[in-house]
């Protein structure tokens, strides 16, 4: 072991170099990002109030820098203009006047996710836990109802083409939302009981009815749901899953029309038949932009690909076993 001393020396050098490298990098990262944390519950940015007084767009900013992940607003007629940042940070957000639903991730040993209901000052008025990675948040046009969609087993053991969503709907701020996947799904009058049902893309029509996309066995349907009857009724089959639910649409202020199938603003008529087209704005729009809010377009929409992977499609992502050892 003559070279032992040399090797210990080299090893000490490597460790020193590694530690020094990390320290230098972290110091530089800290100075580059002096205010990494959003000031929690800070007062509303002075710029926000005038913007929200008029027609505006609410979105989650993904521009690098301090505002990353923050909810921001711009006037609807100047969408590329300067942003006014609210104090809220969300993974997903949807807002109507005076109320917003915000899905947040709390990073920790086990990252957990919560849904927060934000009041007029963009501060939380209520919150509770949701299972899984945030995918989509929706409010009804009057803000009374909330729908959240999360990926439940979306984890490192996920396999191609397999995903599962959990979509919960209920009164905004209520403690016990219901899981839409537990509703009875009927296609052509027959109940579908397969376990791989997934439901996402909820759009509320009124206090009871809503529209959504349901999927099972690689097929997807536009469904009309009833909260009171706990049913989902297929209205039409979509030839392939839409690339995105029609999220870019302005969901609207209190007095405008509700969604109607075939009536322009319903998901059915606006979803493209092929996966790649963009959502088309209906000719006779039922939405006006007056006091409205819009959401960011969605990312991470569930499952365009399930349809093509029937063989292994299941409710269940993990087809690959966990590996042990390295």
């Amino acid at each position, binding site marked *: 072991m003559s070279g032992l001393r040399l*090797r210990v020396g*080299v*090893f000490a050098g*490597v*460790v020193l170099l*590694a*530690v020094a490298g*990390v320290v230098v*990098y972290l110091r530089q990262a800290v100075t580059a*990002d002096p205010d*990494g944390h959003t000031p929690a519950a800070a007062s509303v940015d002075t710029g926000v109030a005038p913007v929200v007084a008029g027609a505006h767009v609410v979105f989650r900013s*993904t521009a690098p820098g301090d505002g*990353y*992940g923050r909810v921001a607003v711009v006037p609807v007629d100047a969408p590329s203009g300067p942003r006014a940042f609210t104090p809220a940070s969300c*993974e997903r957000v949807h807002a109507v006047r005076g109320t917003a639903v915000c899905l947040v991730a709390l*990073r920790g040993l*086990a*990252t957990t996710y919560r849904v927060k209901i934000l009041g007029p000052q963009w501060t939380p008025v209520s919150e509770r*836990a949701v*299972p*899984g*990675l945030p*995918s989509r948040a929706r409010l009804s046009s009057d803000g009374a109802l909330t729908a959240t969609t999360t*990926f*439940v*087993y*979306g*984890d*490192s*053991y*996920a*396999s*191609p*083409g*397999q*995903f599962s969503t959990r979509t919960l709907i209920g009164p905004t701020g209520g403690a016990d939302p219901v899981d839409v996947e537990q509703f009875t799904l009927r296609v052509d009058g027959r109940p579908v009981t*397969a*376990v791989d049902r997934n439901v996402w893309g909820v759009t509320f029509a009124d206090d009871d009815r809503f529209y959504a996309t349901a999927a099972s066995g690689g097929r997807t349907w536009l469904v009309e749901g009833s909260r009171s009857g706990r049913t989902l009724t297929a209205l039409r089959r979509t030839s392939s899953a839409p690339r995105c639910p029609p999220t870019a649409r302005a969901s609207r202020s209190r007095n405008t029309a509700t969604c109607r199938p075939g009536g322009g603003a319903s998901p059915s008529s606006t979803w493209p038949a092929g996966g790649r087209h963009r959502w088309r704005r209906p000719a006779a729009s039922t939405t006006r932009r007056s006091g409205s809010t819009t959401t960011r377009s969605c*990312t*991470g*929409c*569930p*499952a*365009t*690909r399930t349809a093509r992977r029937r*063989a*292994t*499609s*299941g*409710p*269940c*992502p*993990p*087809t*690959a*076993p*966990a590996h*042990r*050892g*390295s």
Partner: protein
Amino acid sequence: MYVSVRDRPAGPDEAPGRRSRRVATTVVLLGVVSLLTDVSSEMVSAVLPLYLTAEIGIGLLAYGFVDGVYQGVSAFVRILGGVAGDRGRRPKWVAALGYGISAVSRPLMLAANGMAAVTAVVTADRLGKGLRTAPRDALIADASPPGALGRSFGVHRALDTLGAAIGPIAAFALLAALPRAYDAVFVVSFAVALVGLAVLVLFVPDRRVGAGTARPAVREVLRAAAGPRLRRTLLAAGLLGVLTVGDGFLYLSLQHRDDFAAMLFPLLYVGTNVAYLALAVPLGRLADRIGRARMLVAGHVALLLAYLCAAGSAGGPVWTVHTLVLLGTFYAASDGVLAALVSRLVPAHAKGTGIAAAQTVVVLARFASSVAFGALWVAAGRQPALLGFAVALALAIPAAGWLLRRVEEER
């Protein structure tokens, strides 16, 4: 820890078969290398879903694709690593290459910005992992007295699992201190991997395995690895593997049953790892005493019980915890134990290949099992699928026991 470097090395000089309370220094060092490498890789994989979906904006579906890619790559390269280690008779350097590739992939993560780049980087990491596993296990086997192989692998797997537990904690602690500093996670991960690589290169003895001076031909290595005893063992491992539902599916099943598990989904992995960590050494020692083949079979009984716990309709924390403990027991009684078993069934110059063959059989069999289980779940439902696999496993366990009878005595 149960072992420390302060123990005098049992080392290569120890008379084979002698019972000793010490574990070879090489084994501990390789355990430390694995610990550091696992801290490094688990740091990245713990934040990867969030990083990809929240920062880069890749959908989760696409992430599933990434994951699928690297599982496949890992299985294929494994055999390659085993043969290369045996053929060059310097398994240390094949292992070092594997660890090195994974380490280098970390800083590349910083630059990777699109789907293709992320896939390439993740694939490189898995490639390194596949390459290093078999030669490293061959080194462990080579450095351990035959009578203490189970314990040596147990010590190594315990250190390895400890690293896997520290990794996510470190990553999220870092993210808590520096929000969104995913780049910092990658940088720290790289630094840790480098230190691990340095331990391997500088301190693990570069042992020549096998006898003689000539390089064995590939064909010779493969022939040696395909002896009748190994064939029976591979058959048994394949049979059991085909009925081994991936732990992801079991977690899924728990999650379907109750919200307790759903909220704590990421913690389920931690629970299993804690049980694995605690039991790897004791069960490895027990395997040395009662026979590794027997321990392997017994481990699958724990798996069978885990199926039953997960299949029951009653939910709640108690059943969830039981399932996780049984699953951890299964891993502790099967993973390192299989490597220990196989390393005694092949000649010294084909150890890496033999271990790689067994691990590849298990990986492929489990992959087939997962596809079958997923299909059964969709067709029949969660509970019938689990119970069906439980019944099949109950039949396969005695069959495997029969295949493995006296496999260890014939030497």
